[in-house]
């Protein structure tokens, strides 16, 4: 048992830090720190910077253009990026489709699609959820009927994050209509520029517009755009759920949010003293820090394979990490007191009260991040997974 990083890992951390210092544009870091949305061009800019160094696809093997990092190195990379307020790598191509293609794709699919993810030719979005199938993916209704060399796809996807930028979508669709619902699902790669694809933005309660509905009407998808066998889509979806463990907790972002909160509590005043000088607030911050410190170790234990390989492990991490992030966001919102009220973007922000600009969006971030415990498998679904692991079938 030894929690220290090896000399090699320490050197790696220094290398990442130096890279970020030299290559992360201030302009981007400032926006990220303030919780502002990045434009498509800004996200692409950051992807290109990482790709130039060979660090974009942290989880891919060297063979396909990944850096071949260990779990701990990936964790260090993620943590350093978040601390430096680097933009989050858009996960749909790099962290989700990439590993699926590597595991299930044909040689031709890998050769065609993987480089395009790295060099930014394709922007991917994820077509899983449907209006009637949020947490219950088995009941999805988008249908793909095979005709000659293509599938004809009809249906509706929703909660499709960043679909407004995407030219490609990987989607779960129903290809068999009898038998067990899980056994009739396939995994398709859909060209968003095809006729019959229509997207409509969904505005969220914080005023943001990152998610979308996608309507699919008689969309033709070539059969070679199916990944894995027909009706094997459920297996792929489950693989993905268990695969992406490094980042499931988003630890780097939780750590960065905590550091921002601590700074904010040193700055916001109540009854003439900084919040952090009030024993009650300071103790609340300390309680969060204890959970955070524990979660770092829990995360690393899981990454090191101490905690078993069941789906219960990432599920527990996701629950605790999302709740912790939400608690941090909530404290940041509270720290602002009445100054949390202004709607970001409305009114002359720079003239408003005594709020540091990087905290001006605290309330909006708090509301937006209520999604963390809902999207990507709600915490209720995660609890069901863990419970079944603990109790077995009853």
């Amino acid at each position, binding site marked *: 048992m030894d929690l220290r990083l090896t000399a090699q890992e320490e050197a790696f951390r220094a290398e990442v830090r130096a890279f970020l210092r030299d290559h992360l544009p201030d302009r981007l870091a400032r926006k990220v720190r303030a919780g502002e949305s990045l434009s498509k061009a800004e996200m692409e800019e950051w992807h290109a910077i990482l790709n130039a160094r060979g660090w974009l696809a942290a989880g891919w093997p060297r063979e396909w253009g990944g850096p071949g990092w260990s779990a701990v190195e990936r964790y260090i990379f993620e943590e350093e990026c978040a601390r430096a307020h680097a933009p989050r790598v858009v996960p749909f191509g790099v962290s989700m489709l990439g590993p699926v293609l590597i595991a299930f794709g044909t040689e031709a699919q890998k050769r065609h699609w993987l480089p395009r993810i790295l060099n930014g030719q394709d922007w991917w979005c994820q077509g899983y959820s449907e209006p009637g199938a*949020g947490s219950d993916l088995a009941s999805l209704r988008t249908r793909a009927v095979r005709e000659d060399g293509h599938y004809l796809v009809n249906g509706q996807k929703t909660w499709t994050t960043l679909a407004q930028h995407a030219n490609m979508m990987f989607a779960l669709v129903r290809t068999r209509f009898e038998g067990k619902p899980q056994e009739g699902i396939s995994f398709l790669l859909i060209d968003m520029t095809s006729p019959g694809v229509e997207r409509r933005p969904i505005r969220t309660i914080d005023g943001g517009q990152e998610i979308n509905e996608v309507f699919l009407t008689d969309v033709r998808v070539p059969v070679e755009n199916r990944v894995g066998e027909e009706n094997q889509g459920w297996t792929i979806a489950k693989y993905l759920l268990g695969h992406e463990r490094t980042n499931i907790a988003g630890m780097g972002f939780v750590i960065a949010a905590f550091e921002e909160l601590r700074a904010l509590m040193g700055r916001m005043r109540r009854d003439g003293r900084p919040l952090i000088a009030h024993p009650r607030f300071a103790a609340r911050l300390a309680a969060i820090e204890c959970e955070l410190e524990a979660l770092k170790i829990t995360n690393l234990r899981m990454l090191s394979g101490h905690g078993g390989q069941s789906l219960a492990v990432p599920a527990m991490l996701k629950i605790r990490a999302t709740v912790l992030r939400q608690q941090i966001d909530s404290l940041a919102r509270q720290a602002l007191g*009445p*100054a949390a009220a202004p709607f970001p973007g409305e009114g002359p922000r720079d003239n408003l009260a005594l709020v540091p600009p990087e905290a001006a969006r605290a*309330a909006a971030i708090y509301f937006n991040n209520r999604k963390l415990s809902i999207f990507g498998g709600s915490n209720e679904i995660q609890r069901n997974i863990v419970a079944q692991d603990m109790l077995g079938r009853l």
Partner: protein
Amino acid sequence: MDFTPTEDRRLLAETLDRFLADRYPFQHRLAVAYREPWHDPAAWGALCGLGILSALVPEARGGFGGQGFDIATVFESLGRALCPEPVLPALMALRALMPTGRALDDVLDGSRQVALALFEGDGGIGFGQIATRAERRGGGWVLSGRKAVIYGGHVAAELLVAARHDDTLGLFSVSAGDARRLAYGMIDGGGAAEILLEATPAELMIADAEAVLGDALEAGALALCAEAVGAMDRAIEMTTEYLRTRRQFGRPIGSFQALQHRLVDLAIEREQARSITIAAAAALGTEGQSRAVSMAKALVGGAARRIAEEAIQMHGGIGMTWEAAIGHYAKRLVMLDHQLGDADAHLDRLAAAYCGG
């Protein structure tokens, strides 16, 4: 002991509920609450025509109410409809003006909007951090300082400003046109403003205003509690209905026991919030006012947040969308706690009394 509302208040609630259902359906609210001037001036006039402000003022001052339960009745209706009209600032201004000789007719009929400019960026509710200074100039006064987050300040023609002269906290009237005003919309709808005073001419209204300002603050806090109770009622109604109708895994999600039990906990929190608001309403105007209002605001702040968070969570993705009403109710329920002292501030006040008193 009697928990039956008086006939007058029952009628008032009915009238307001009917008007708001008619004039302020959710789509209308959505259209006006987030766009300058962050409310609906026509509806404002109509509400004042119905006597919504007169209900907040006693007969002696030209109204027909003014007791704690009148305030609670009005704001519970506003909360149910999630109405962003600036009734809270009017209430607080009226409480501050009541002890003065000033005629209130133009305020009560809605034609002159007045807002109270109290705090200056410190998150606490003590008046000790108020630094705006009043100085005599010529025959009158000028004020200098900066007032943060003035509810209703975006539409007020007149600002009632708390400022220090010598060692005393006084209340001054400033014409809104004379101050630099930064108006903005709020994340949960409705508007507010910040003002900058730089030797701005002012009229002295109350020389020692500490008690009056405390009363205005507490009446406002009571109003927020009642508004929260109304919004909680609707949020829980909507969530219950969603659990009954939304299906996943082949059954209504309300049949899942984990959600059932959480819903029940919300209902209990709501009943507790309603009860403590009743206690605060009953205490308004008695010696127990400060303590009762702080108890209410402290309890309601926490309950409102928990109900809001759970209502979103139980609605799933739908709860995150701008189009669905529930997210807006949730925002209001969370942000209410940021107004006029959050749960922490009021708990601190209660806690200090254990040792002090």
